[in-house]
């Protein structure tokens, strides 16, 4: 009998995302909180089923956009008004209408960069190695199978009981994930 600390968790493999959703929901109701689902495409409702909250990404993107925009206009204003003011065809030094396009572009750029990188960082990618990859057939998580993994660090995790709980659903197979 293995002890919890040698295994990462128990993983169940399903045929359809429906079965996965069902299992996830009842697992949550059972009181499991440290679990994750693995699917070949985004399954609607799965995050909620697994008890996950909303992501912070939109907020980060908003901030990124604001910084980009303000930074952009400041750059133009500083360069053409403060650092080296020059008479350009009689136009005012701070010709704000002509500073708008770049301000806009940099707003978008700032937002886009923060969207992309926040997505990666929050997902802790790149992460080439992960215990779940040890699970049998896990390659099919990116092809046609749906996995539910209850992690050993879950307070409610108990190798035998948890396995028994999972067997209640029509999983193709259930296996331990070693660390």
């Amino acid at each position, binding site marked *: 009998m293995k002890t919890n600390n040698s295994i990462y968790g128990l993983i169940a493999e399903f045929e359809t995302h429906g079965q996965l959703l069902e299992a996830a929901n009842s697992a949550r109701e059972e009181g499991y909180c440290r679990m994750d689902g693995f699917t*070949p495409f985004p399954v609607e409702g799965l995050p909620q089923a697994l008890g996950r909250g909303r992501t912070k*990404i939109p907020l980060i993107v908003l901030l990124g956009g604001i910084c980009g925009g303000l930074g952009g206009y400041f750059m*133009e204003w500083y360069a053409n008004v403060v650092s080296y003011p020059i008479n350009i065809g009689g136009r005012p030094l701070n010709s704000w209408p002509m*500073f708008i396009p*770049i301000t806009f*572009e*940099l707003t978008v*750029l700032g937002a886009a960069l923060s969207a992309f990188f926040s997505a990666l960082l929050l997902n802790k990618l790149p992460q080439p190695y992960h215990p779940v990859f040890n699970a049998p057939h896990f*390659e099919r998580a990116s092809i046609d199978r749906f996995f539910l993994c209850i992690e050993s660090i879950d307070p409610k995790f108990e190798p035998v009981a948890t396995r028994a709980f999972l067997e209640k659903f029509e999983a193709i197979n259930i296996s331990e994930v070693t660390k």
Partner: protein
Amino acid sequence: MIGDPPPGKSDQHGNPGELIAPGQTYAGITGRITSIPLAKQPPRAWYFGFAIGFALLMMLFLAVTWLLVKGVGIWGINMPVAWGFAIVNFVWWIGIGHAGTFISAILLLLFQQWRTGINRFTEAMTLFAVACAGIFPLLHLGRPWVFWWILPYPDTMGLWPQFRSPLVWDVFAVSTYFTVSLLFWYLGLLPDLASVRDMAETPLKRKIYGFFALGWRGSAAHWQRHQSAYLLLAGLAAPLVLSVHSVVSFDFSVAIVPGWHSTIFPPYFVAGAIFSGFAMVLNIIIPIRKLYRLEGFITTRYLNNMANIMLVTGEMVAYGYLIEAFMAWYSGDKFEEYMMHNRAFGPYGWVFWGLMVLNVAVPQLLWSRRVRTNTVLLFLVAFAINIGMWVERFVIVITSLQRDFMPSAWGMYTPTAWDWATLAGTVGLFLTLLFLFIRFVPMISISETRELVAEPKKIPA
């Protein structure tokens, strides 16, 4: 280990109604699509296409080398026509680069499912087209070796760019557009790279694709953030794609040159961009789809819808031409009036009428469903439009500059062999990149296609 993919569907199966041929399975889709990058040998036709592209690319290197040795004088430009092919090609390529983001971003926001089969492909096309476009603003400089003076950085001269110049706007718009498109494309690609990784037989391929997949596990958390970021990027890309060609059009509309100084330019440029973008998508996708037997994934419905978009944007462009002529007359400005007259009946009149045929007359064929669903005809129409859109930029740039305010300074413009070589060269660059993409990257979004199978009625995101 996975069951064989279903045999490629042909047109009579996928009738225009369907987005994906019936009877597809997750594994089937995955196997079918990943089999292309994972194949040991690409089809012969691939080598053929790549060879053409590469040969032209070498010609580009030659042309550019000579250009750097001698200067822009090797081109046909002169006074008064100081801008020639370089700018024409730049605008043309940028325009082509618009379809990708339009399809992936705007169709995504409009919950159009018919993007699924083609978005990955068109996004890649966008990147390559913008890359080609990006070359020209640099090459057309008299002193390309100091191009970075356009960028704001603390130099030893205490000088900055002149931010009132549309050319500086261009730099920011185009580079932003390229960056955002790249991020958008890669983010969408991530789960599929994981699929390829997991489908790969040899450890090396597994490692390579694994490296780029960044360890994607398809966990619920991954998907949740991925979806959120992807949708936000789409939301950002949508206004961006509209802004980019607007900014490009400012290069002209901000100037006082008759024929350029016109408020209709931004919308009419954007329409033209999407117009040519879709035309290019069709010109590429129709042969590729046949070559790789992807009719099952890129069904006739896609072609039909794209044709419809071309029809709409085509009419918008035609309207643009009409308004230009109308305003020239209505404004009562003698310079505008002469410009319009010169455009139609001046020394380059034949180009103008050619444009009318290619961009206004030919696209009307798309009213017919038969044309829209017949790959050969559709291909020809799209090709005509691609040429037409290039000609449009030629007309705008050349005929406006050729005869502006001072009759004493009027002149003509004749492109040289080097002008043509550079144009053809960038086509080579485009093809080369495209064929490499087809060879090594899944050209259809696997995960999104799975969603289509999972619940065809489901609305993405």
